[in-house]
């Protein structure tokens, strides 16, 4: 197994050392308390930092797709641009809107960010870097991420602005529709791996990632998951809730300063979350590439720490999402719902059936070639 190889750069060494250090001097309650606080603070810090990196990466890659340079003034290659933007957004005034429902107006961004952070916690960033690991992990993720849409709907309504309202309704319809597809695509893989727990799911993919293990069916599920995840985050060709040309900025038209920052942050982090869940479920999560029998190769791959693998795979998927975003024009609302209800959902239902047949009749790659995978 993976533990047979030396992994000198792993963070789990550090965390286990910290745990034994704390336990040696403190009662159990305080150890747990300190560790909870530490994990929470680290998650929030990671949330903010990943968002900053993502914003920078998105702007750069977008620029490259459009044969531009992107941000290149603040710092070397514009590396500090998103930090500067963050400082600007923190300093901006939070504007009160006349005749808006103030309580809901202030509460709405929190729904968005809380849903995003809760989902963020369920991601396995690396070996030993996994905060929430329920035995119903997949269900938990799809449940918690659906809270965000309430923030969008409330924001649209409480802004007292018809653009925001229409944007919110569109976003609601879109999210509810595509949530279904994303859930079914994940369920396909749950059928394949026989567990809903993310850590177990990752362990089972050591030699054969789920996307290869269930060959046809897994590939279809992967593509469907990426499309519907993309649509859920209101990005790319599916960004019609905030279609600038018709709706100014959609549901967050009236927000400014930190509240807008929340939506902005949540949007970028949702992109990351979708990519990382796809990584965990389809691409073997944080596990390095391993081949049966190639011990030297496996050893070499294991020297690369698991979090590097995780962020590498996630980065590829995020790049894919940006690539899609800058390739296709925006869909109309009826085309969007057609795509979901007339194409993705029926394909998904057939696909899940095919996956059940594959698993029952032993046609997955691990069953067909037990020595190889």
């Amino acid at each position, binding site marked *: 197994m993976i533990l047979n190889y030396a992994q000198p750069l792993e963070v789990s060494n550090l965390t286990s050392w910290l745990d034994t250090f704390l336990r040696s001097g403190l009662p159990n309650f305080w150890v747990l308390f300190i560790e909870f606080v530490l994990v929470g603070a680290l998650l929030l810090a990671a949330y903010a930092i990943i968002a900053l990196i993502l914003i920078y990466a998105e702007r750069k890659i977008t620029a*490259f*797709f*459009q*044969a*531009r*340079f992107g941000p290149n003034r603040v710092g070397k290659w514009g590396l500090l641009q998103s930090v500067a933007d963050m400082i600007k957004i923190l300093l901006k005034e939070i504007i009160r809107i006349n005749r808006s429902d103030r309580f809901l107006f202030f509460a709405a961004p929190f729904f968005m960010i809380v849903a995003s952070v809760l989902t963020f916690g369920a991601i396995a960033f690396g070996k030993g870097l996994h905060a929430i690991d329920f035995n119903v992990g997949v269900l938990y993720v799809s449940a918690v991420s659906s809270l965000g849409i309430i923030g969008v709907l409330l924001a649209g309504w409480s802004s007292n602005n018809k653009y925001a309202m229409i944007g919110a309704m569109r976003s609601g319809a879109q999210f509810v529709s595509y949530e279904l597809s994303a859930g079914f695509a994940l369920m396909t893989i749950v059928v394949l791996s026989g567990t809903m727990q993310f850590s177990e799911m990752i362990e089972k993919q050591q030699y054969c990632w789920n996307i290869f293990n269930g060959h046809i069916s897994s590939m279809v599920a992967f593509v469907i998951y990426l499309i519907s995840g993309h649509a859920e985050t209101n990005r790319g060709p599916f960004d019609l809730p905030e279609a600038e040309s018709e709706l100014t900025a959609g549901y967050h038209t009236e927000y400014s300063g930190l509240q807008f920052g929340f939506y902005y942050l949540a949007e970028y982090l949702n992109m990351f979350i979708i990519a990382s869940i796809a990584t965990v479920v389809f691409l073997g999560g944080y596990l390095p590439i391993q081949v049966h029998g190639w011990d030297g190769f496996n050893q070499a791959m294991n020297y690369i720490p698991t979090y590097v693998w995780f962020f590498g795979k996630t980065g590829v998927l995020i790049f894919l999402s940006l*690539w*899609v975003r*800058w*390739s*296709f024009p925006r869909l109309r609302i009826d085309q969007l719902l057609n795509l979901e209800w*007339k*194409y993705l959902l029926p394909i998904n239902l057939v696909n899940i059936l095919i996956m059940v047949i594959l698993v029952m009749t032993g046609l997955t790659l691990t069953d067909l070639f037990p020595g190889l995978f």
Partner: protein
Amino acid sequence: MNSISKYFSGLFTGIKSLIYGMSVTWKELWTKKVTQQYPENRKTLVISERWRSELTMPHDENNEHACTACGICEMNCPNGTIKVTPKFIETEDGKKKKILDTYQWDLGMCTFCNLCVLTCPSDAIQFRNTFENAVFTRGKLVQQLNQEGSKLREKKKEIPPKSPEGGLKD
């Protein structure tokens, strides 16, 4: 049956076209960046010869220009940008002659339509591509194009090479 085959053919052609679109953007990703980083690249900046940003009146080495102060440019200017002030002098053989006193052009009013250059019968004025025309007051935008002490070029001299703008004769 027709609708079913239409559904599937639509699905597969859709996927094909999406992949084709992504291949196009993939190639676009590696193209050369076209951004002009202006203040830094002033040395290498290439502005097209035909770019119109400043009206000039070319003077030759004898401080002579070709403007006869006929006023056609002034008449043709849609905005009243040009103001030609003639003055009358007496030549050696006693004839009265109209020559140019001042030729004023207001950059702030000009739309760079090129009508003045096109209609000038003697090709006295032309547009140049020097585009850094920002000044601090509006008064500075009004420029006098004929130089101090310049005079009309004699007829018998050969016509100077024409500007790339071309004139009406072309």
